[in-house]
């Protein structure tokens, strides 16, 4: 439902925490009530959350991919991995607490024709935007590859399995599925499909590997990036990553991405 007034649908709203569920000792699934964001969000977009409504430490907002929306009650889901202070504070929120939430931000996954087959490659909490994608979009076939350190860390794998035709897990410790990198599964998965599109989100080495595999096979590939964000809206130029083509050209993760065609990225220059 696009905004009738024609103004851009990005809003800074007070999002109230509705539910919080710990999926593992370090993963939390949060739902926030934020109707304007839920209404306009497309998979791959993110929200920029202020975790300290008052106070200056941490100062900057924290970005999280939208893991799903519920248009009936106007909520968005976020899957958060607690790795630092900001994410720890999210784990301690009381239900009903309101946080400033800016969104939906960024360029999401492209429109891929429903008759095409897609492979979703998820590493860790990179599963969040891909789960939203799998829930929201219909395709001839959806194959998900999902890797994490260990079985426990493969959070929401059940939901991914439900929304996809097939789920192939991988774990670094071999506790579930393939014992090794999720990208090890990609070539075989691609072999089975007809002109597939690959959509990936995870750690940079995983995405680099995915892009490399796709490039060699001339498979269309889109990747969702993370970076340190300042403004989140494209103004500060703080979040750039190297662009393909000329050296020293950059693209902004927050506004040009977070989802990029793998061909747009300067993979060699990526640090």
């Amino acid at each position: 439902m696009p905004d009738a007034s024609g103004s851009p649908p990005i809003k800074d709203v007070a999002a109230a925490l509705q539910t919080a569920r710990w999926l593992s000792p370090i993963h939390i699934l949060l739902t926030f009530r934020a109707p304007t964001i839920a209404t306009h969000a497309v998979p791959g977009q993110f929200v920029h959350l202020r975790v300290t409504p008052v106070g200056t430490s941490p100062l900057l907002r924290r970005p999280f991919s939208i893991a799903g929306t519920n248009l009936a009650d106007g909520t968005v889901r976020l899957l958060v991995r607690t790795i630092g202070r900001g994410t720890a504070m999210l784990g301690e929120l009381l239900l009903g607490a309101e946080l400033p939430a800016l969104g939906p931000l960024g360029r999401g996954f492209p429109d891929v024709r429903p008759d095409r087959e897609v492979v979703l490659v998820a590493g860790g909490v990179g599963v969040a935007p891909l789960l939203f994608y799998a829930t929201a979009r219909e395709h001839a076939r959806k194959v998900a590859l999902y890797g994490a350190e260990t079985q426990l860390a493969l959070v929401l794998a059940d939901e991914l399995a439900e929304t996809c035709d097939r789920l192939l897990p991988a774990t670094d410790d071999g506790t579930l599925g393939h014992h090794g990198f999720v990208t090890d599964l990609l070539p075989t998965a691609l072999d089975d499909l007809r002109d597939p599109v690959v959509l990936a989100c995870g750690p940079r080495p995983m995405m680099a590997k995915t892009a490399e595999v796709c490039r060699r096979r001339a498979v269309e590939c889109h990747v969702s990036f993370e970076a340190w964000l300042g403004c989140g809206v494209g103004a500060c130029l703080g979040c750039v990553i190297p662009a393909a083509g000329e050296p020293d050209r950059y693209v902004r993760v927050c506004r040009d991405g977070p989802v990029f065609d793998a061909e747009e990225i300067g993979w060699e220059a990526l640090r």
Partner: protein
Amino acid sequence: MSEAAPAPLDLRTVLGPLELRSPVVTASGTFGYGIEYDGLVDFSRLGAVVVKGLTLEPREGSPPPRICETPSGMLNSIGLENPGVEVFIAEKLPWLVERDVPVIANLNGGTVEEYAQLARRLGDAPGVVAVEANISCPNVDHGGMEFGKDPAQTARVVGAVREATELPLIVKLSPNVTDIVAIARAAVESGANVLSLINTLLGMSIDIFSRRPRLARGKGGLSGPAIKPVAIRMVWEVRRALPEVPLIGMGGILTGADAVEFMLAGASAVAVGTGSFVTPSAANQVLDGLIEYGRHLKLRSLAELVGGVIL
């Protein structure tokens, strides 16, 4: 005190030859070219949009990572990424002009002549109400802060810009100096109409796991609430030494209360920088806070606050 309807609060802000409709502007480099905040900010309530620093030629900027967070602050080394003055005028400026937003162009040269050229080029540009010569950027190898470190160099570059334009001339000072008043004086004596202070403090942060600097360029500029006390001190020092010179204060402003503090210290206008990252509509909220404070004190004009600290 009377219970009559409050007198309207006059927000007009006179900075020497430059008159703004409100005392709250955006700080260069933190508000892009305005369009990025479309729908998030009421532009009609901004005194001006100070755009991202411009250079003559396009610049790609520094390699990433370019920003990191610090206690109550952040470091940046954007390295003046910008499309160059011509593309700015052709592609960025019209959006702001259409919306009747006064624009202040932030100028960055590698040489004195480059500053002058930029000023000349922008003198003709529609909607540009003033130029701000940034002699304080810490994130480029040539030019930038070198000029702002020394009164003689400051005088050279400011003098050249002064000759190159009729527009009101703002000079933005670096806080990374022993004697801010000496630099301020040199800038004013060479033709600055207004001074902006402060730019970022030079800082550095190291990731103890990778052992690398958190910014690819090593050093960067510290901004945000952490630096507010330094900024207030410098505004006050310059105000005391040069009471006739209008100042734009900045450094860590998030709220109206912060802006009042800057005005009491001597700033006639304020700029919101990092605050826009924390809250996109921060500049509007800062103005709301100033108005509330002014109404509470039954002021007729916010100008009454300027330099009003009681010693």
